[in-house]
C-alpha cells in the first residue's frame, strides 16, 4: 500500500516534469528575441518599443515610412492636404482584406480612430491628434486636425495600425488584444504568455510577394546574456539590446553578424529655471555655456562607453530632419573657456549645485552622473549628485523636485527632434523644467509648419538658439547593438529601434 503511494507520487512527478510539448522543427521560421513580454499586441496599448515591434507585423497603416525615412503609400494609394494644412483626404486601396476576411474600407479607418482614442490607451494622444475622421465613401476618408500638425502623417504611419470593425464589435477590445487581426504581412497564430508569439505569413498580403518567410516567432528572453548565448546557438536569429562588451565578443563568433546603429536618443543634463533651479546661477546663459564647455563628453564616451556613442551638438542629432554635420558641432571640452565664462558671470570660484540622477535608469547612467560630477569639479563647480530610483525620479511628485539640474534622455521615433523639443521646452508639459517663451514659440512654429524643407530650416534656427542660450548640457547618443544570424537577409533596424520584418528572409 505504502509502496504503491510512493510509486504513484513518483509517476505524477515525472509526468509534471515531462509535460511541455516537444519542440517543433524550425524550417522557414524567423525567430526574433524580445527583451520583455509585450504588454499588448494592440498598437495603442503596446506601450514600449518591444511591444510595438512585436505588434507591427500584424498591421498596416495608410502610409508607410520607408528605409530612407520618406512617406510612401500603403493602405492609401494617395492623399491630398488642404491649403491650410488641417484637412487630409485619403484614397484607399480597394484590394485589401483583413486576416479574418473582412474587407478593408473607410469604415475600418474610422473605427481605428475611435478605438485608438479610448482613455485607457497609453498612446491615445497619437489618435486624438485627429479631431475628426469620417468616411466620404467606401474608399475615401477625410481627416481633420485641430490645427496644422507637422508630424501628423508620421504619427499616422507609425502607430495607426488598421483594425477590422466587425471583428472588434464582436469580440471587444480585450478580446481583440488576445487575438489581434490586421491587414499586415503576418497573421496571429498563438501566444503563450511570457514565452512566445507565433505568426504565419499572410497569403493574401497586398504587397505581392511578401513576406519572405512562412513563419515568424517572437521569443521572450529578458536576460541579455541569454540572448547572446541563444543567438550563438542559432536558437534565435535576431537578438537586440546587447551591451558594447557583448557585441565585441560576438564579433569574433562565426555565424553571427553584429549590426550597430546610432539610436535616436539624446542624453542630456537638463537645467531648471523653475522649482529647485529658480534663483540659482543656472539662470545666467554664460553659466550654462560654461557647463557645456566644462563637461568632457568625449572622455565620458571613451571611458564609459568604450567609444560606442557619439557626442551630440544639441537636440537635433544625427538622423534628424535639419541635422547638418558641417555646421552643427558638439561643444568642445574647453575648461579654460568655461572658467572665463564663469568669471564673466560673476562666479570666478565656481558654485555648488545639485543634480538629480535616475539610478540604473539607462545603460551606465550612474557612471555618467559621477563622471559629470568629476569633470565639472575641474571648473570649480561642485555638483551634488542625488540618485533616485527610476520610479520615483520620473514620478509626478518628484520630477520637478530632485536637483537644480537632472540627467535624462529623450528618444524620438519620427526622425525629427520635435518630440523632445516639445516635451522638454513647452511650459505646461509634464517634463518641462526650463521655461522660455522664445523656445516655446519656436517649437509651436515648427509644429505648425507642414512643409518639410521649411521645417528643416526652422530646426536649424532652433539649434542655434539653443546653442547660444543652452537649456541643457548636450551629452551623447548611444550606439545600439544587435546580433543577427548570418542566415538572415534584408534586416534593417532604424534609429528609433523599430523594425519591419516583411522584407526579411532566411537563407
Amino acid at each position: 500500500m505504502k509502496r504503491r503511494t510512493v510509486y504513484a507520487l513518483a509517476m505524477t512527478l515525472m509526468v509534471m516534469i515531462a509535460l511541455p510539448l516537444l519542440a517543433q522543427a524550425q524550417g522557414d521560421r524567423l525567430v526574433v528575441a524580445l527583451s520583455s513580454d509585450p504588454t499588448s499586441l494592440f498598437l495603442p496599448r503596446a506601450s514600449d518599443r518591444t511591444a510595438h515591434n512585436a505588434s507591427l507585423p500584424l498591421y498596416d497603416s495608410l502610409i508607410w515610412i520607408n528605409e530612407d525615412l520618406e512617406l510612401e503609400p500603403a493602405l492609401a494609394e494617395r492623399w491630398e492636404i488642404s491649403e491650410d494644412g488641417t484637412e487630409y483626404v485619403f484614397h484607399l486601396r480597394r484590394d485589401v482584406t483583413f486576416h479574418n476576411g473582412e474587407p478593408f474600407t473607410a469604415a475600418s479607418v474610422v473605427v481605428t480612430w475611435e478605438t485608438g482614442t479610448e482613455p485607457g490607451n497609453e498612446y491615445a494622444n497619437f489618435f486624438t491628434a485627429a479631431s475628426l475622421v469620417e468616411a466620404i465613401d467606401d474608399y475615401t476618408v477625410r481627416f481633420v486636425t485641430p490645427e496644422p500638425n507637422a508630424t501628423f502623417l508620421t504619427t499616422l504611419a507609425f502607430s495607426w495600425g488598421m483594425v477590422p470593425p466587425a471583428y472588434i464589435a464582436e469580440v471587444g477590445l480585450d478580446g481583440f488584444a488576445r487575438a489581434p487581426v490586421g491587414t499586415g504581412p503576418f497573421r496571429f497564430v498563438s501566444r503563450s504568455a511570457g514565452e512566445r508569439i507565433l505568426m504565419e505569413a499572410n497569403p493574401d498580403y497586398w504587397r505581392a510577394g511578401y513576406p519572405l518567410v512562412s513563419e515568424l516567432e517572437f521569443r521572450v528572453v529578458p536576460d541579455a546574456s541569454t540572448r547572446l548565448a541563444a543567438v550563438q546557438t542559432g536558437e534565435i536569429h535576431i537578438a537586440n539590446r546587447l551591451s558594447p562588451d557583448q557585441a565585441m565578443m560576438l564579433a569574433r563568433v562565426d555565424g553571427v553578424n553584429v549590426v550597430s546603429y546610432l539610436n535616436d536618443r539624446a542624453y542630456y543634463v537638463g537645467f531648471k529655471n523653475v522649482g529647485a533651479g529658480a534663483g540659482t546661477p543656472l539662470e545666467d546663459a554664460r553659466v550654462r555655456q560654461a557647463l557645456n564647455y566644462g563637461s568632457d563628453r568625449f572622455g565620458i564616451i571613451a571611458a564609459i562607453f568604450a567609444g560606442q556613442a557619439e557626442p551630440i551638438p544639441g537636440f537635433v542629432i544625427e538622423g534628424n530632419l535639419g541635422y547638418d554635420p558641417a555646421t552643427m558641432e558638439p561643444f568642445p571640452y574647453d575648461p579654460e573657456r568655461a572658467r572665463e565664462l564663469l568669471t564673466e558671470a560673476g562666479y570666478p570660484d565656481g558654485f555648488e549645485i545639485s543634480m538629480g540622477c535616475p539610478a540604473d535608469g539607462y545603460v551606465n547612467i550612474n557612471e555618467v552622473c559621477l563622471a559629470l560630477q568629476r569633470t565639472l569639479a575641474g571648473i570649480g563647480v561642485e555638483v551634488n549628485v542625488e540618485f533616485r530610483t527610476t520610479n520615483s525620479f520620473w514620478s509626478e511628485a518628484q520630477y520637478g523636485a530632485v536637483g537644480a539640474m537632472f540627467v535624462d534622455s529623450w528618444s524620438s521615433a519620427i526622425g525629427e527632434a520635435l518630440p523632445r523639443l516639445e516635451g522638454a521646452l513647452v511650459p505646461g508639459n509634464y517634463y518641462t523644467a526650463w521655461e522660455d517663451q522664445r523656445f516655446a514659440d519656436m517649437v509651436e512654429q515648427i509644429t505648425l509648419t507642414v512643409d518639410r524643407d521649411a521645417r528643416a530650416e526652422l530646426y536649424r534656427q532652433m539649434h542655434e538658439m539653443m546653442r547660444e542660450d543652452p537649456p541643457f548640457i548636450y551629452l551623447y547618443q548611444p550606439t545600439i547593438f544587435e546580433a543577427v544570424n548570418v542566415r538572415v537577409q534584408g534586416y534593417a533596424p532604424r534609429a528609433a529601434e523599430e523594425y519591419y520584418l516583411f522584407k526579411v528572409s532566411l537563407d
Partner: protein
Amino acid sequence: MFRYVIRRLLESVLLMLGVLVLVFFLVRLTGDPVSLIVPMDAPTEQREAFRELMGLNAPLPVQFWEYMSRAVQGDFGNSLRRRGEANLGIILERLPATIQLALAALAFAVLVAVPLGLAGGMRPGSAVDRLARAVGLAGQTVPSFWLGMLLIVLFAVTLRWLPSFGRDGFASIILPAVALGFAGMGQLVRLTRSAVLDVRRADYVRTAHAKGMRALRVSLLHVLPNVAIPIVSVLGVQFTYLLGGSVYIEVVFAWPGLGSLLENAIRDADFPLVQAITIFISLFAISIHLLTDLAYGLLDPRLRRA
C-alpha cells in the same frame, strides 16, 4: 492534534494579513506608475484621464480599503498594463511553469543529495564522503544565477547538448532545474549525511549488521526511514524557496513562470500585478509550511499517537 491544527491555521491567517498590508505600502513607496506607463509626450489631460480610469487618484486610505476588501474575497484586481485582464488569470496562466520547474529542481536535489548523503554518512572519511562534503559546500556557496550562466555557456553554447532558454520539452528543463535545485541539493546532502551519522551508531543498525544483513539493505531499510523526517521537513521549506528563488533562474533561462512575470511586472510598474503575485507566492509559502508541519504527524508515529 486537532487543537494544534487550529492554532497553526489561525497563525497562518494572521501572517497573511500582515503580508497584505506590507505589500500594499511597499509597492507604493516605489513611486508613481502613471509616469512610467503613459508616454513622455502625452498631454496632461491624458495623464489625468488615465489616472482616474485606473483608480490611482483616490486617497491612499480609500485605495487601501478597496484593495483589502477585495483581497479577502479572493479578488486580486486587474493588471495596469494588460488592460481588462484579471491578475488571478494572468498568474494562473504562469503558475504551472513555475511549479513544474520547482518540482524538477526538487527532484534533482533529492535524487542527487539523498543517495550521496547516505553513502557518505555510512562511510565517513571515504572518497564518497569527501565528494558529498564538497558537493554540499558547493551547493551552498555557488550563486544560482552565476551557475545558470555557466551551465548555458557550457551545455548550450559550447557543447550544444541542451537548449539555452525557453520551455520546449524535457531537454529545456534540465539546465534551469539544475541551476535552481543546486543550492537545495547542497543543503540536503549535508543534512542527510549528518542525520545518517547519528543513526548509523544506533542499536537497531548494529543489530541489523550483526545478523548479517548486507550494507545496502541496512541503509535502505533501517537508516533511510529514520533520516526521512528531517529530510521531509527541509523539503517543505526548500520547495517554498524554490518558488520564490526562481525569479533569477526564470529570468536567466527565459522560463515563462511566476518569477519572470514578477520581474516583468516590477519593471513595468504594474502595481496591482506585483501585489497579486507577492500575495500569491506568500499564500503558497504559508500553506506549504502548514502542510509540512502537519506532515510530521503522518511520518512520525510518535507524534500521531500524541
